[in-house]
């Protein structure tokens, strides 16, 4: 029994240590955003890598999500004779939930894995040690630029995702239901207005729809960097870090999404 307890104790300790390391990394990376020297060029390069190069998959994801949303809800709404409200449904779902979560998951898959693989390779080929030796803090040089880029670009991608998704809904609404475009867009705006405003001018939906991707962006970047920098065991280790990054950040996105929604729904006054 004591042996079992010792093992349990060790396991718990190492889990907590992992969590602590994760938050220390996140804290340092955030602190370095405002500390010299700034690696501006790296930030721009990462914005291109994370943002511009993810544009294609995000647009495709958004378009088809919006289309399938409209298609599915058209069947449901028709039974109530409420097809006219299709715009409300697509807009609320895309902006509040699907836009941020799907953009987050796509970026976690495409960018998170890339970051983990790159930093992991740098770790196993001693390039991280080389940075340290040459007097550069690897967190400042590698993690902070990726964090900044993700914090900025994931929300941007989400906005694009939302917009393209609503257009996708528009396409299906007019093709399948024969709903005029003007009518569709009107219901989209009505829904946003109905969900209320914070400080009288900022739509609640936008607050929800933008808080999430900022958090997701940070999550993806820190998780990927954490696993990447912690890589051990050669090329095989790089593969493991990559897998862990994608799995962990995807699950975290879904869990954190629930809690953000919970908090925001109680803070913001809807309706």
């Amino acid at each position, binding site marked *: 029994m004591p042996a079992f307890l010792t093992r349990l104790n060790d396991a718990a300790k190492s889990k907590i240590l992992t969590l602590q390391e994760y938050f220390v990394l996140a804290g340092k990376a955030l602190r370095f955003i405002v500390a010299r*020297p700034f690696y501006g060029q790296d930030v721009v390069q990462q914005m291109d890598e994370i943002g511009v190069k993810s544009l294609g998959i995000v647009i495709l994801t958004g378009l088809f999500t919006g289309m399938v949303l409209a298609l599915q809800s058209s069947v449901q709404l028709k039974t109530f004779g409420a097809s006219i409200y299709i715009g409300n449904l697509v807009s609320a779902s895309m902006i509040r939930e699907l836009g941020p979560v799907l953009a987050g998951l796509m970026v976690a898959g495409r960018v998170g894995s890339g970051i983990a693989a790159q930093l992991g*390779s*740098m770790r196993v*080929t*001693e*390039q991280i*040690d*080389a*940075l*340290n*030796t*040459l*007097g*550069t*803090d690897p967190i400042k040089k590698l993690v902070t630029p990726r964090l900044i880029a993700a914090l900025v670009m994931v929300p941007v991608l989400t906005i694009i995702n939302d917009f393209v998704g609503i257009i996708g809904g528009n396409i299906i609404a007019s093709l399948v239901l024969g709903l005029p475009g003007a009518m569709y867009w009107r219901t989209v705006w009505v829904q946003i207005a109905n969900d209320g405003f914070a400080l009288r001018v900022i739509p609640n939906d936008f607050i929800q729809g933008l808080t999430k991707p900022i958090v997701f962006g940070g999550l993806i970047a820190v998780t990927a960097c954490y696993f990447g920098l912690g890589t051990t065991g050669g090329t095989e280790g790089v593969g493991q870090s990559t897998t862990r990054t994608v799995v962990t950040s995807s699950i975290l996105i879904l869990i954190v999404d629930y809690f953000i929604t919970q908090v925001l729904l109680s803070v913001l006054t809807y309706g």
Partner: protein
Amino acid sequence: MADLPKPSTFDDRQRTSDTAESDDDDRKSAAVRQAIRSELAVDAPSDSARGGKRSSDKSVVELQHVSLAFDVPIIEDVSFVTCEGETMAIVGESGTGKSTILKLVLRLLVPDRGFVLIDGEDITPLTFEEALVVRQKMGMVFQGSALFDSMSVFENVAYPLREHTDMDEDEIAQRVREKLQFVDLEPDRVMEQLPSELSGGMKKRVGIARGMANNPRIMLYDEPTSGLDPLTTGTIMRLIMKLQRELGVTSLVVSHDIRAVFRMATKVALLHERRITFLGTPEEMAASDDRYIQDFLGGFSS
């Protein structure tokens, strides 16, 4: 399967030859010593050439009773002093913690006990940021070169200059050329290439150029000749000696390539079972009667 004769593995062969040799060990060790002496006579530069600009006995890199363990002990009670202009070689079997010593000197690792002194200053209590500054005194050449593979050769060599100096682009370009020429590379040919386009020996040389770009007074080499053909090995060794001779840098070389070490080191430390069991000049080492030392030298001279 059980009926098949067991194939003779490399290990088996090794063991058989070991037992065979242990019968006439004395004869062998005498032969080894002879071989090493002749090696020294042929290859070793004269003391003046090897000693280069060694003039003072100022301690540059010093370890005092350093111990370090990760779960299992890595090194125990290791002490040595490397004076200005000396080339100290740390030799030993694989996995005896040789590279760990370099990481301790760079303060990438902190010892559990003992002190690491650079220029007489204890670096163990330094913060991470302070350590970054101390590291600028040192240039490190990694075993696998560790060039940044997202950057060109030029950017790699320029990296420490951009990080730590106020040099303008012209000065940086000039310094990079100078360093690439020093390591016998044609700047115009290699500067724009990516590390992945270079051969192992060229990578090593770019690694040395990057390590010395900042004109550090201390150079650290981790297995500088491993994985290279004999010709390239010779080139790299001459380069390390040239660096020490012409610029008077203090060097710490970690290697198991005993031939290379004997040619360039002024002092050799043998790491065996986590401790330094021998510390002296290559000549003293070759003359030693210690059984392990003879075995160690013999294993490489044959």
